[in-house]
């Protein structure tokens, strides 16, 4: 997909595309665009059009500016660079080399978009237009073939034919659970009732994931087109897009897109003369992770506390206001127009036997190329992390990758060659989830990581059912004890027992999956738990209570900086005397470690054992730098 040039704007004109996703906007990309526009007009370059796009997914390299048709990719552009791009590149034809992307492995400068490893190995279907078109112009979307799938279904296909096409494509829900989409639609279609609803779930609450935000910001029309097709297939005349309030830009662009679609009669009464009526409302979430769960989400739309209820009845039988309802994730809906246009067989040829098509991951953490990637199902974790992701930052060692966020699990290095698909991830104890993928290195403590996720799920537990409300609390208390040096033998077994009971007995997906990070970290990194419990040691040096700070006598210059900055006056020593930390006073805040001048690096962290030769009391400085 990426390799094919878009056939729009093939009129010999240059396009300068400035990314205006959330990431790049935070680094002043709007200003960059206005300077580019100003300089282009001042230079009288009438064949050059400056425009903005949504997220390219490579936010870490932002602000990003792309020049077409040469396909030049500029990274980390500053406002001051805009003038040089206009004069050197657009006027004199000499691209600005110092702004090229540099490969983190080879250090080589890569001038063009499609030669960058991060993009080269991707298959972009869901993200096909993100970064390519202006998300606030419906014309841009239509020029790339947008709304053709809708025309096709309304003029040539019956709802039943659409459902069989989606079933044949093998598409499974991209929100986490992976339920077959065609089947979900069929259940709702076959439910008795005049009034039915379709909901787009854009309540991306998973910390460490931003795929849905990028799609809504970068290509809202593709989601709306998917939603209209889904509505037609199940027989819904009304729909909702439930978006997180934390995503203001996505909300703004979605509202613009809906208005434009209404003006073009793609939404509203008698769509494209087909007698089919459909209206869409935007509902803003108010900050509750549990609202990603279908029944909680519906309660929230109805103006209530977002608490899940037991199923059955399933939403397909009794959903919003008791009517049959289908809820699909953003990425599921964004896949629909492509499947309709290119056919189910084509789509099913991508991926593995049971997991078809592509999947979007938000690759983050200690990774060189952090960003959004879309890959065919079935490629290995190694390919994703080391080839597309460029490996671990600062040449450190890979430790684990967390998929599925707080509901998923961590996978160790032994699983790097496993294929990415629903079944493999599930059998490893994790889930596909909605697409968060956080990479960790040797400096990450897996017990602390489990504690971190459980702190989140425990706080987000709605409190309705006991196993989740109290089970996660008990598990968290044990994990806090372990990370603070109060772990007891038998804690691991107790955690496992509690985890199984929370998993089996919780009412909804939140509780049923909350123990996954704990169970997988025990499964793959049990030695780290033992180390914390038995030796009171954290080898990653992350658990503050288990880490002590020491000043090395052969490095300390007696400069007094750490002594002055210490909030509890735990550093003893005078000028030109080797400082000593009073371990009884020390609160392990690490300020001395941060402020010791890098040329001395005299403060060290230790866990479990004390470094040798640490004096008891200050002694005169011997070392000279």
């Amino acid at each position, binding site marked *: 997909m990426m390799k094919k040039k878009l056939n729009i704007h093939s009129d010999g004109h240059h396009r300068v595309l400035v990314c205006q996703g959330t990431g790049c906007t935070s680094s002043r990309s709007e200003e960059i665009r206005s300077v580019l526009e100003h300089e282009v007009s001042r230079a009288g370059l009438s064949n050059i059009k400056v425009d903005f796009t949504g997220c390219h997914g490579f936010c870490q390299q932002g602000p990003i500016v792309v020049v077409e048709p040469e396909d030049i990719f500029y990274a980390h552009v500053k406002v001051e660079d805009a003038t040089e791009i206009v004069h050197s590149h657009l006027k004199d034809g000499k691209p600005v080399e110092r702004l090229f992307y540099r490969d983190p492995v080879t250090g080589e400068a890569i001038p063009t978009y499609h030669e960058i490893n991060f993009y080269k190995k991707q298959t972009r279907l869901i993200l096909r237009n993100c970064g390519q078109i202006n998300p606030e112009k419906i014309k841009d979307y239509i020029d790339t073939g947008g709304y053709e799938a809708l025309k096709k279904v309304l003029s040539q296909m019956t709802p039943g034919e659409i459902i069989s096409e989606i079933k044949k494509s093998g598409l499974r829900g991209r929100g986490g659970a992976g339920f077959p989409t065609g089947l979900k639609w069929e259940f709702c279609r076959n439910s008795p009732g005049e009034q039915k609803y379709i909901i787009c779930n854009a309540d991306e609450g998973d*910390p*460490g994931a931003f795929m849905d935000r990028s799609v809504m910001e970068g290509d809202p029309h593709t989601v709306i087109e998917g939603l209209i097709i889904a509505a037609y297939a199940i027989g819904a005349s009304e729909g909702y897009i439930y978006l997180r309030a934390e995503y203001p830009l996505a909300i703004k662009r979605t509202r613009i897109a809906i208005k434009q679609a209404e003006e073009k009669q793609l939404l509203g009464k008698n769509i494209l003369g087909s007698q089919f009526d459909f209206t869409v409302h935007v*509902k803003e979430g108010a*900050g509750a992770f549990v609202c990603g769960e279908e029944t909680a989400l519906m309660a929230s*739309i109805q*103006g209530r506390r977002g*608490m899940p209820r037991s199923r059955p009845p399933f939403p397909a039988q009794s959903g919003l206001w008791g009517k049959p309802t289908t809820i699909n994730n953003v990425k599921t809906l964004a896949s629909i127009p492509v499947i309709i246009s290119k056919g189910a067989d084509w789509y099913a040829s991508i991926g593995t036997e049971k997991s078809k098509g592509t999947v979007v991951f938000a690759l983050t953490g200690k990774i060189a190329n*952090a960003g959004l990637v879309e890959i065919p199902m079935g490629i290995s974790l190694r390919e994703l992390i080391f080839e597309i992701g460029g490996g671990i930052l600062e040449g450190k060692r890979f430790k684990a990758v967390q998929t599925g966020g707080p509901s998923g699990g961590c996978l160790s290095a032994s699983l790097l060659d496993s294929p990415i698909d629903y079944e493999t991830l599930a059998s490893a104890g994790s889930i596909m989830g909605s697409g968060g993928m956080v990479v960790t290195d040797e400096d990450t403590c897996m017990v602390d*990581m489990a504690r971190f996720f459980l702190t989140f799920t425990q706080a987000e537990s709605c409190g309705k059912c006991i196993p989740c409300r109290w089970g996660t609390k008990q598990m968290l208390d044990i994990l806090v004890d372990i990370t603070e040096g109060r772990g007891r033998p038998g804690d691991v077994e107790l955690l496992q027992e509690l985890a199984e009971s929370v998993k089996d007995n919780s009412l909804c997906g939140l509780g049923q999956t909350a123990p996954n990070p704990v169970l997988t970290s025990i499964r793959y990194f049990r030695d780290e738990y033992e180390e914390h419990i038995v030796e009171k040691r954290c080898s990653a040096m992350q658990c503050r209570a288990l880490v002590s700070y020491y000043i090395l006598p052969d490095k300390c210059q007696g400069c007094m900086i750490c002594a002055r900055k210490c909030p509890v006056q735990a550093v003893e020593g005078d000028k030109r005397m080797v400082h000593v930390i009073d371990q009884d006073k020390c609160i392990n805040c690490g300020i001395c470690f941060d402020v010791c001048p890098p040329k001395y690096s005299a403060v060290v962290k230790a866990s479990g054992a004390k470094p040798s030769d640490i004096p008891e009391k200050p002694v005169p400085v011997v070392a000279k730098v």
Partner: protein
Amino acid sequence: MENPSVGQDTQALITNQESAVQKSLNEILHSYEGSQDELIPILQQVQQVFGYLPEPAMKKLAKFLKLPESTVFGVGTFYAQFKLVPTGKNIIKVCRGTACHVRGSAQILAEMGKHLGIKPGESTPDLEYSLETVACIGACALAPTMVVNNETHGQMTTKKAAEVLEQLKGKK
């Protein structure tokens, strides 16, 4: 619903606001029909206008939507977005998402707390600053991040975060 940690000055401020609340609330409610699914959007708008959910506004809203006050209060306390006490003029949110966590957001949060002299969830006594955490703002490739008055700052270090705060104080 009154918060014991709110000082006397603030309490006076709240009383002064009561009549203003009535007036602004009438304007807000004017554009709604009174259907119960409008509760969350109305609360969102009330908070946008006042910075928090004043008690008289919630009571009036309950009447308008023909809901028990407890239901309105229940929704107001369920969602993380809603605040029941006034917040500072400047809101500093430190992202505590996973990607930010592994890249050291706990230190950023501690640094901000140290500079402002408050804990997450609190406001300075002069109501100039509030410190909050957010579960994830979805700018994970820029981790660690913080949001100051709706402006996102990425790739923070404790030093850069302190500079952002200094700049904000300078603007005051």
